[in-house]
């Protein structure tokens, strides 16, 4: 068969998403903004087809396409399922918001689909070139989405801030890429790993490049000290967009980081482990401490996402298959928890028409909306990592992996940060259940969002433990693949 057609078949999800984005864009230009709802359903259908084409790939086989620029294996498939699922949820949950905020423009699902395409390319990247292109595709769509509510100055500010800082991060990343290319003589991950493994003494130039690459990627996962943009962008961006930012891009960038470090620079694990450990500790602590003073729920969730990235990085610090397995498991559960929390926020509106953003807006929610309050409580308890809920298990998995790798101090700091973090998660629960109702709050989200909340809450509740076995075994297979290539 023609190698190009063969490659397109291997890159099935990307091909479907590309064609789908172009088709929805075309339909959108003809229907205009009136067609937003229908277009969103079409887009979700296309995401489903992309997910289905993912299932068509032979399981457990690593396939390279487009001259080794692209790789499809269990690792990329696992992350793509998460990404596509989170993106579909982000599309659906935006419908009520876009309907009444006078921001309903048909480009929303199109941009979201292009961002998803970028993220799929990121987790399948097998070369520094395709890594960069995928990252840019995702980031550019994200900048526009952050400023999507252009009538509001906060949203434009968020978009501009994100764009400027993101461009800086891309510049740093590219500088690192050029250094690595200059000193290794190749941009392919496998090629780099051969060069790194063959070099008798580690090359200072490659190390320099590696540090820059990690810095650039740390910005994308908003790990401390590259987290500055996160609270501002989450607060300013429209709530559905903030929900999207907190979910899928984190999973994609984390997957990218794992693949670059483990496959490309596996032989330099001792060097990058120190950096990742620092990022992890700093993110966990700052995420936990920084959230305490917040009164805005979106900022609170932003700090929560910083802290969670820190916990996930604990798994990467271990640099073992067990650690990566824990990281993937963590991402899967984190996505459900964070999307669920944002969904509850989106479901509520103040009686005077304003969005619910302050923590005090939720006071006494348990009396007005017992169902939503219970769901939010489940998400908060789960994010805090209280045992019977699902959020506890991935934390347990990453800490176990860290301890197995001899990183006792890291695990201890993680547990401490987790306890500090529990304070603000539980404070929200206290506000909902024990405070007197303040502002009148009404719930007017659609029925779809209600169903999504119920599904996420059910997943995070103790019933979700039924899902642990399949997720962990899939994550285990995915993690093994990454180390196979490296080894």
């Amino acid at each position, binding site marked *: 068969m023609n190698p190009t057609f063969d490659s397109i078949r291997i890159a099935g999800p990307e091909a479907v998403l590309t064609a789908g984005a172009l088709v929805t864009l075309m339909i959108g230009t003809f229907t205009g903004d009136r067609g937003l709802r229908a277009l969103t359903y079409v887009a979700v259908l296309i995401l489903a087809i992309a997910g289905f084409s993912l299932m068509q790939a032979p399981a457990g086989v690593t396939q390279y396409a487009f001259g080794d620029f692209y790789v499809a294996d269990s690792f990329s498939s696992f992350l793509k399922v998460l990404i596509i699922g989170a993106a579909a949820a982000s599309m659906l949950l935006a419908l009520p918001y876009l309907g009444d905020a006078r921001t309903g423009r048909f480009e929303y699902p199109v941009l979201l689909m292009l961002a998803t395409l970028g993220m799929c390319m990121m987790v399948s990247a097998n070369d520094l070139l395709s890594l960069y292109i995928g990252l840019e595709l995702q980031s550019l769509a994200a900048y526009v989405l952050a400023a999507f509510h252009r009538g509001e100055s906060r949203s434009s500010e968020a978009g501009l801030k994100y764009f400027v800082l993101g461009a800086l991060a891309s510049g740093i990343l590219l500088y690192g890429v050029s250094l690595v290319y200059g000193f290794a*003589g190749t941009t392919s991950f496998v090629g780099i790993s051969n060069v790194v493994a063959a070099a008798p003494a580690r090359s200072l130039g490659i190390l320099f490049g590696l540090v820059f690459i990690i810095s650039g990627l740390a910005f994308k996962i908003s790990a401390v000290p590259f987290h500055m943009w996160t609270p501002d962008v989450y607060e300013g961006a429209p709530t559905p967009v903030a929900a999207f930012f907190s979910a899928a891009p984190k999973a994609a960038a984390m997957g990218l980081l794992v693949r670059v470090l483990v496959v490309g620079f596996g032989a330099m694990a001792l060097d990058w482990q120190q950096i990742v450990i620092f990022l992890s500790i700093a993110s966990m602590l700052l995420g936990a401490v920084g959230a305490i003073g917040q009164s805005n729920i979106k900022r609170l969730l932003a700090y929560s996402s910083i802290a969670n990235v820190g916990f996930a990085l604990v798994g990467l610090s271990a640099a073992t298959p067990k650690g990566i397995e824990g990281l993937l498991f963590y991402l899967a559960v984190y996505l459900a928890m964070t999307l669920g929390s944002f969904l509850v926020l989106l479901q509520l509106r103040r009686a005077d028409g304003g969005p619910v953003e302050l923590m005090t807006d939720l006071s006494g929610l348990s009396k007005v909306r017992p169902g939503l309050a219970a769901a939010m409580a489940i998400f908060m308890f789960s994010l805090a990592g209280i045992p019977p809920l699902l959020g506890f298990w991935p934390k347990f998995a990453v800490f176990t992996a860290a301890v197995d790798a001899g990183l006792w101090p890291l695990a201890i700091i993680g547990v401490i940060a987790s306890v500090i973090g529990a304070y603000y998660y539980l404070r929200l629960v206290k506000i909902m259940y024990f405070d007197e109702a303040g502002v009148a709050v009404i719930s007017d989200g659609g029925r779809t969002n209600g169903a999504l909340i119920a599904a996420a809450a059910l997943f995070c509740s103790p019933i979700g433990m039924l899902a642990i076995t399949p997720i962990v075994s899939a994550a285990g297979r995915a993690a093994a693949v990454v180390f196979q290539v490296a080894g």
Partner: protein
Amino acid sequence: MTAVLAFYLFAGILLTAGTMVILSKNPVHSVLWLIVAFFNASGLFILLGAEFLAMLLLIVYVGAVAVLFLFVVMMLDIDFAELRAGFMRHLPVGLAVAAIILTEMLLAVGVWQPGAGVAIYGAVGAPPVGMSNTQWIGSLLYTRYLFVFQSAGLVLLTSMIGAIVLTHRQRVGTKRQNIGAQVARTPASAVHAEKPKVGEGVAL
């Protein structure tokens, strides 16, 4: 010999122009120096035998990007006195940061062990016989680098959609050209004969 002289000529002017870009006080002069720098860089490409890249540099960077820069710089109303005031105020901090970075770089270079020449793995090499390098670049872009090339196209599409989403708005009350209506005009709807009475005007 001529090639060496030409190299030093182009490289020297390129470096001077590059320095002038950041040293000129007037941003318009900076852009003009930038154009000089581009011309000399394309001269270097020609010396390397990459005539297509040289022309591309001129067409894309000088023809489009630099001219666009020039427009933007001239259109923006920048108060340079104000900018310079900020510059002087932040100068000590800036110098401190620069000194730290310089020291770090010197330390790094100090322990540097220059390795053997780097082998470029999977390098493409010179074009096959009977193929110009322009043709060779094109054929590589559409075969070996197809994935990256097409994806770059998608990135551009995304930025285009983004620009339209963020800036395009339907204004109410503007008068737009309706080409269909213009074309459909007939003499019957546009021209009519009047017979004005003597001493009176015509109501139009």
